[in-house]
């Protein structure tokens, strides 16, 4: 009886234990998927440099490396790169950020300028890290000199050099050739016609302030016109919109009359300050045109929207009109309503031609040769571009 019980018990135990044995066999077969304990290969060629760009304050470091051999090749299991930064030469590392698989550079934008850093990079495959590779020390610095703008500096120096050279040459009395501007002939013709008809010449030096370069050029030409009107005793009316311009005009005209030997012909009442307000000035000048009926109207200087009001009224009154201004937006109106227009730089050229003042001449010649240089550079660029697209000059000059 006990033997039977023992045998039954043994069988029962065996039967009960059997599933456990089978249970063990039903566990996941880890021999097919071993735990990946092999870390990926580490990166190589790790460099960390101060990142230079247009708004560089020295707070950016660029870290670049060559990909781990297991990234996309080899075991192909790299999922990301982990970056660390240390401020004390690798003694302790702070986690900096993560770059994805396949990336080989990272921009640290949180560096403090002037602090020495070391950087470490390791590849990560989901379970373990490669050996950390480090680089450094590197210090972020704000750049003293923006090398990407070197072309601008060179051109500027060339241009200033030319202007200064020509100015010095003019001061020493060298004869710098400036061609005669056709507009000057037109001005003299207009004044001549006014003299024939016995009617006054109206000279409007614009409504700019005395420090406006156009006003200054205009006053130079006023001196020339005043000499002619003094010679032939034609009345000259000069309305101004700025008090300081009026005093300057008075000086200019008085001196011109004195130089022509006719100081008594000078009439200070003809140099008038009318109004600072733009359209009030235009209205007052229109009144002069309608009452005193000048035969020649000269508009030389800085004009704004009142330009067309002046020119049109003068046209209606039948005067011969010559205008000169560098305000590009007003040139169309003057060209339409006046008999002759000095455009833009012609105004400055006319005043340089008449006065032979060294600074004006120097500036004019300098900008003239700058135009030649610009055309030459453009031609050079085109030729080089077609000959060799990788040309260093083309890249340096043209593609910044």
């Amino acid at each position, binding site marked *: 009886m006990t033997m039977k019980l023992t045998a039954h018990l043994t069988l029962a135990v065996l039967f009960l234990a059997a599933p456990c044995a089978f249970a063990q066999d039903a566990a996941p077969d880890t021999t097919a998927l071993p735990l990946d304990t092999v870390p990926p290969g580490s990166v190589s060629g790790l460099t960390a440099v101060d990142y230079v760009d*247009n*708004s560089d*304050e020295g707070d950016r470091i660029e870290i670049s490396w060559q990909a781990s051999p297991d990234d996309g090749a080899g075991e192909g299991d790299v999922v990301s790169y982990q970056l660390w930064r240390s401020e004390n030469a690798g003694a302790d590392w702070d986690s900096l950020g993560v770059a994805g698989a396949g990336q080989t550079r990272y921009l640290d934008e949180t560096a403090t300028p002037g602090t020495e850093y070391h950087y470490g990079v390791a590849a990560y495959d989901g379970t373990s890290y490669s050996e950390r590779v480090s680089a450094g020390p590197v210090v972020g610095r704000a750049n003293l000199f923006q090398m990407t703008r070197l072309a601008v500096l060179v051109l500027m120096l060339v241009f200033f050099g030319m202007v200064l050279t020509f100015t010095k040459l003019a001061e020493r009395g060298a004869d710098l050739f400036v061609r005669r501007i056709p507009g000057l002939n037109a001005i003299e013709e207009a004044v001549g016609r006014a003299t024939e008809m016995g009617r006054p010449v109206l000279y409007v030096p614009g409504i700019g302030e005395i420090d406006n370069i156009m006003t200054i050029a205009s006053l130079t030409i006023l001196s020339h016109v005043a000499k002619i009107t003094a010679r032939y005793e034609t009345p000259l009316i000069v309305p101004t919109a700025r008090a300081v311009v009026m005093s300057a005009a008075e000086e200019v005209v008085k001196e011109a009359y004195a130089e022509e030997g006719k100081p008594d012909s000078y009439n200070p009442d003809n140099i008038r300050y009318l109004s600072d307000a733009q359209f009030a000035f235009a209205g007052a000048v229109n009144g002069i045109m309608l009452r005193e009926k000048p035969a020649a109207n000269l508009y030389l200087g800085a004009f704004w929207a009142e330009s067309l009001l002046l020119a049109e009224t003068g046209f209606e009154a039948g005067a011969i009109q010559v205008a000169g201004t560098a305000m*590009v*937006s007003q040139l169309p109106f003057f060209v339409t309503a006046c008999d002759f227009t000095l455009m833009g730089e012609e105004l400055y050229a006319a005043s340089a031609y008449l006065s032979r003042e060294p600074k004006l001449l120097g500036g004019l010649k300098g900008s003239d040769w700058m135009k030649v240089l610009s055309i030459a550079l453009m031609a050079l660029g085109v030729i080089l571009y077609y000959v060799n697209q990788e040309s260093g000059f083309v890249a340096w000059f043209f593609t910044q």
Partner: protein
Amino acid sequence: MSWAEKVLSIDRRWIFLAIGIAVTIPFFLPLGLPVVVTPPVQSLYDAVEELEPNSAPLLLSIDYAPATLPELEPMSMAILRHCFRNDVNVVVMTLHPAGYGLAERALLAAAEEHDQVYGEDYAFLGFQPGTSAVILGMGINIRNVFPADAYGVPLDEIPIMQGVRNYDDIPLVISLAGWSAAEAWVYYAYQPYRQRVGAGVTAVMATDFYPYLNAGQLEGLLGGMRGAAEYEELIETPDQGARGMDSQSVIHLLIIVLILVGNIAYFVSRKKKASTAGAAS
């Protein structure tokens, strides 16, 4: 007097009256003329359309003054509507003292139309004088120039301004100006920092900006009320710009006719004078 001389001596007040009538009638009898979109406007539209929603903000510099309002306000409304419709964040600022009130007016009107929330969808930085210094300063750090927004809230407390430090974080700047501010953005934002810039200017100045557009310094250009009307056509929300186009077209036609008639009359009368002078001598 021959017809030519009669034409040339018309009292200009009749012409003023004709223009006055030509402006007013299309308001009552709309002609519905189509608005054809030109490449400069299309490029600006495409640049704004490419902006990512709820991401880095568009910087809109509303630099106009009341004198140029009819031409430039339709542009700002159109651009703001475009951005809000696409859920693009917008930061508005101004470089003109009178622009403060106008910028606020346009911004709040457009924001209300699209239920945008201040701070999360748009922000208003206000006015700072010094044009070139402001633009250059923003290239280093916006907070150097605008430490707080127009209402005194520090920029770091405004959600859409977090993470926006300087031009590196701004995909596009658009300047709407009737003076040299738009050029200043090209000189001081594009040249040193290569910030992408678009411009909307009055028609008087538009010709000066074509060289910049051609050289790639500008992403796009809106010129005058016509530019605003074209932009409104692209976003399919006709407003003040489109409303004025009928009058604009009628008046342009009138002016062309007047120019042609005037020129023909001028040449005819000159020929007549030459022939009578020849006959007399």
